[in-house]
């Protein structure tokens, strides 16, 4: 029986789905002054973490800081709800250091919901969007299963893994969103009717066990850091959580692997039940055992899911084996012999929109005013979702205001790298950000995300004046300290020579600039400080910037050269509606890809897989020769 439709409220921006992408999108739009509605299947699942209870890590942690610098919420939300904080890769250079927090899942959800509820211009609603209102190739709103027709100037879809979601546990398979939530079926069907190309992806999650039944003595403790760190620029050191919860590491063993191998025929990944493409970088445990048959053990991380729950996430043990087998597998692991499983792991298949159908603003090429973000665009990870969410929200708001779009380049943010990858290359598996995807990662550091993006966030109206003033103060302090170190001379003398000798360095022959002294590999800022008279009190974040900018100036300059070259190629625009069939000599595959993706610049064309340098050369020559007009 069809539900009669009724005309509901009008909005500037409607966001469908309140996961990590949708929350950021709605907040950005509302904060930019747009009358915004955020509609989601279940209000108990706002900013829900259906998989690992953590935020950040290499590349991802940098995205969180970027979202924060643009005025987004993820950084603040995790800072308010973490139970453990760790800086990773501290043994490596500044470019790849990354912050990761263990989240209190329920708190994370509650605090985000609270923020959404208390944001002006924002209406949070439970409901299921089933269709889009599309008129003249433009999206003008959404229709819900209760018959409400909401009109809007722009719409952001962030359906996540709910789109025709299907959970698989061994032989069991049923229609479901993440964690047994209702799936969204009709919306997918209607997107296909609109002409969008969808595909099936697969992801999975491991079982959860009761922490009271873990024998921690057989595992290795992984505590948090003592030194305060935070994701958001606004979070104070004084608020650093000191009573952190630990994670615990253990291993699988031959016994575990034996059980897996003996039951492979019941594993949907191998029995052929699962058709979706899973991520290579996050394989299930059965996948690992098969692919790395010679490895005697695999690491497992036991991560607490929060303070108000005893559930533990069995990290790196993602599986879709039958429940019975999962239990047996768990019981072979040191520390988990008597563990009580609370939820089985499962695999989930879902629809994604092929992301090459989007522009860099995350608007669909096919339907104007329609934006998509998050897992729906083929990514995986809360941070990736949030990064797209804020960009989609910003652009939906700009569109509603009739303003030009906002994009980030590969040299400006990991978010820029991710979106460019998605819209330029598409993705054949759930896309995860990796530091190696960034060509200019020494410039895209986590410590300078604020320096890179706060200005932009402020211009967009997402960073308030107080915070902007604090940012300006920090910026000036960095400059002042740089100037100071470039003016003070360190004179040779016994103290300096003794210090250098103790570090295995050569003594000073002449006086040198403090900045040059700091460039020496063996010298830290603190070392330098003791040789400077009247050393003022400098904020440690300023010290961090100054140290990095001075010590790694040579490397940073090198990346800057590469960036300059990128800009030259980005400046070579490809005319819109170019007919690639009219260009002779481009290989067939390249021709198809170019036609499909319609790159905006020569640089982007060059990044499309299957478009090789010869094709780009031809394209450049073609454009330069101005033959476009000639070929009819």
């Amino acid at each position, binding site marked *: 029986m069809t539900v009669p439709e009724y005309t509901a409220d009008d909005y500037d921006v409607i966001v469908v789905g309140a996961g990590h992408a949708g929350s950021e999108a709605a907040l950005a739009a509302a904060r930019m002054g747009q009358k915004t509605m955020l509609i989601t299947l279940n209000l108990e699942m706002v900013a829900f973490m259906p998989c690992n209870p953590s935020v950040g890590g290499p590349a991802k942690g940098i995205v969180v800081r970027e979202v924060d610098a643009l005025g987004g919420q993820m950084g603040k939300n995790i800072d308010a709800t973490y139970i453990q904080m760790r800086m990773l890769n501290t043994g490596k250079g500044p470019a790849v250091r990354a912050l990761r927090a263990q989240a209190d899942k329920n708190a994370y959800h509650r605090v985000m919901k609270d923020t959404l509820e208390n944001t002006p211009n924002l209406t949070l609603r439970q409901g299921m969007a089933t269709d889009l209102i599309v008129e003249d190739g433009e999206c003008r709103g959404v229709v819900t299963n209760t018959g409400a027709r909401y009109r809007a100037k722009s719409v952001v879809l962030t359906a996540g893994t709910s789109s025709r979601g299907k959970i698989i546990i061994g032989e069991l398979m049923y229609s479901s969103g993440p964690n047994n939530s209702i799936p969204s079926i009709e919306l997918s069907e209607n997107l296909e009717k609109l002409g969008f190309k969808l595909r099936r992806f697969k992801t999975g999650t491991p079982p959860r066990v009761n922490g009271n039944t873990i024998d921690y003595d057989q595992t290795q403790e992984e505590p948090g850091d003592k030194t305060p760190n935070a994701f958001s620029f606004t979070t104070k050191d004084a608020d650093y959580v000191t009573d952190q919860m630990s994670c615990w590491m253990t291993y699988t063993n031959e016994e575990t692997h034996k059980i897996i191998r003996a039951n492979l025929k019941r594993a949907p990944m191998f029995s052929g039940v699962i058709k979706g493409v899973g991520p290579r970088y996050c394989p299930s445990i059965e996948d690992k055992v098969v692919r790395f048959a010679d490895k005697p053990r695999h690491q497992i*991380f036991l991560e607490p899911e929060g303070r108000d729950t005893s559930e533990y996430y069995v990290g790196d043990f993602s599986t879709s084996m039958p429940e019975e087998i999962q239990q047996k597998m768990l019981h072979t692991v040191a520390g988990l012999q008597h563990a009580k499983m609370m939820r089985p792991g499962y695999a989930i298949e879902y629809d994604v929109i092929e992301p090459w159908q989007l522009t860099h603003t995350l608007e669909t090429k096919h339907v104007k005013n329609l934006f998509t973000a998050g897992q729906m665009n083929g990514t995986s990870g809360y941070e990736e979702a949030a990064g797209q969410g804020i960009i989609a929200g910003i652009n939906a708001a700009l569109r509603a205001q009739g303003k030009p779009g906002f994009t980030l380049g590969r040299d400006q943010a990991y978010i820029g790298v991710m979106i460019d990858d998605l819209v330029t290359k598409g993705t054949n598996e759930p896309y995860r950000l990796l530091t190696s995807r960034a060509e200019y990662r*020494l410039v895209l550091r986590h410590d300078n995300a604020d320096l890179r993006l706060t200005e932009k966030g402020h211009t967009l109206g997402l960073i308030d004046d107080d915070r902007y003033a604090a940012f300006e103060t920090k910026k000036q302090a960095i400059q002042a300290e740089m100037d100071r170190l470039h003016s003070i001379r360190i004179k040779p003398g016994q103290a300096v020579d003794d210090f250098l000798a103790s570090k295995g360095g050569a003594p000073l022959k002449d006086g040198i600039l403090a900045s040059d002294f700091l460039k020496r*590999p063996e010298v830290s800022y603190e070392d330098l400080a003791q040789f400077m008279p009247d050393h003022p009190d400098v904020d440690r974040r300023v010290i961090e910037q100054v140290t990095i900018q001075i010590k790694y100036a040579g490397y940073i300059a090198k990346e800057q050269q590469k960036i300059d070259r990128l800009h030259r190629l980005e400046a070579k625009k490809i005319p819109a509606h170019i007919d690639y069939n009219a260009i002779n000599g481009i290989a067939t595959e390249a021709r198809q890809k170019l036609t499909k993706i319609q790159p905006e610049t*020569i640089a982007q064309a060059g990044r499309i897989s299957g478009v090789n340098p*010869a094709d780009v*050369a031809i394209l450049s020559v073609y454009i330069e020769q101005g033959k476009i007009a000639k070929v009819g």
Partner: protein
Amino acid sequence: MANSITAYDTIAAISTPPGEGGISIVRLSGDEAIQVAQRVFKGKDLANVPTHTINYGHIVDPATQDVVDEVMVSVMRAPKTYTREDVIEINCHGGIVDTNRILQLLLSQGARMAEPGEFTKRAFLNGRIDLTQAESVMDLIRAKTDKAMQVAVDQLDGNLSHLIKNLRQDIFSVLGQEEVNIDYPEYEMDEVTGKMMLEKAQKVRDHLVQLLKTANQGKILREGLATAIIGRPNVGKSSLLNYLLHEDKAIVTDVAGTTRDTLEEYVNVRGVPLKLVDTAGIHHTTDKVEKIGVERSKKALGQADLVLLVLDASAPLQSDDRELLKATQDKKRIILLNKTDLPAALHPENLEALVTDDSRIISVSILKTAGLDALEAAIARLFFGEGIENSQSNVLVTNARQYGLLAQAKAALDEVITALQNEVPLDLVQIDMTTAWEKMGEVVGENAPDELITQLFSQFCLGK
């Protein structure tokens, strides 16, 4: 015959070096190549002959019906041609006047004069060849000897590409591992250590150093070894020049386009192309210009990679000789004691005090062609040394672009090595490691930025 990938207009050019060669070739490429040729050709109907056939006939000026030349015309239809377009090659009798006239006739019948390198550019643009191969083709055109031809051909087969691709793989193996370490810090995986990176960097660097060493030889194969014959008047410079220019050694008589007053002549000595500099100065030595012989010799030295210093063995050493010995002491040189057919007044031993380096001293009689084998052998040895001729493959770096990129790659690896020695964090070191990898990629066209394309084509010479 039109083809889906060939909608370029038809271009024409003389594709053999200008001069009085035996046969000249005028080439056409493009959609209308066959039609254009047909309009000036009297013989078979070229439109109906099978592809890849050679057809006898005459070039006739359609306006006057004058027969211009007796020719053989090759018809090659797309896509199995150099440019992947329809190609016509007219083999004519070589005289510059006739060849030019044929070209002009073709231009008058609808062909367009090819820009420098345009044939190769089309081959490239039509996907026929990759960048390294395109450059090799360019070198092929310039190749002055069979040896050079071999290097160029080897490169067409992708020997250099292959070597560089392997070296890139070496770099990539550590780059990739390091990336994994960075993105998955909590996992127990093999950590790339500074030592591992250092080993790879050094290994690849050493290979690059070897490759770069070949660059000079590559350049010589392409451009010829600039050689100056010097000596005071009447020691036999002219005879030596004539000896070198005869006996089928002369391979290109003229690059400037005129036959007289040439400044450079090319000869092939045992596979080594010599570019004889300032030969006019020698030709003229019988005239009154003779007076300035020594001064002029010194001037020629400046451009020379190799000096053949001729001394008169039948006369004692003179001050001019000493001056020239001194002027050439820093050069790669071969000292010839000529006129051994006459009673000797100057012996190799007499030079011992003056020639302290390892310059070869060879006694010859150019007049009697005695000792000249030793001279040729010395030239060949000087050039090929231990390496090239004996090495299994002729992988040479033959042009400036490749040289430049490989030198940059090597410089990046030098920085990698220095940084590792200074214990700079690996992810920073990796920036230079990546640069090296990218530069090497550019050599093989796997990473071509657009400047490359511009530069590349500006280097092409006219015709093929």
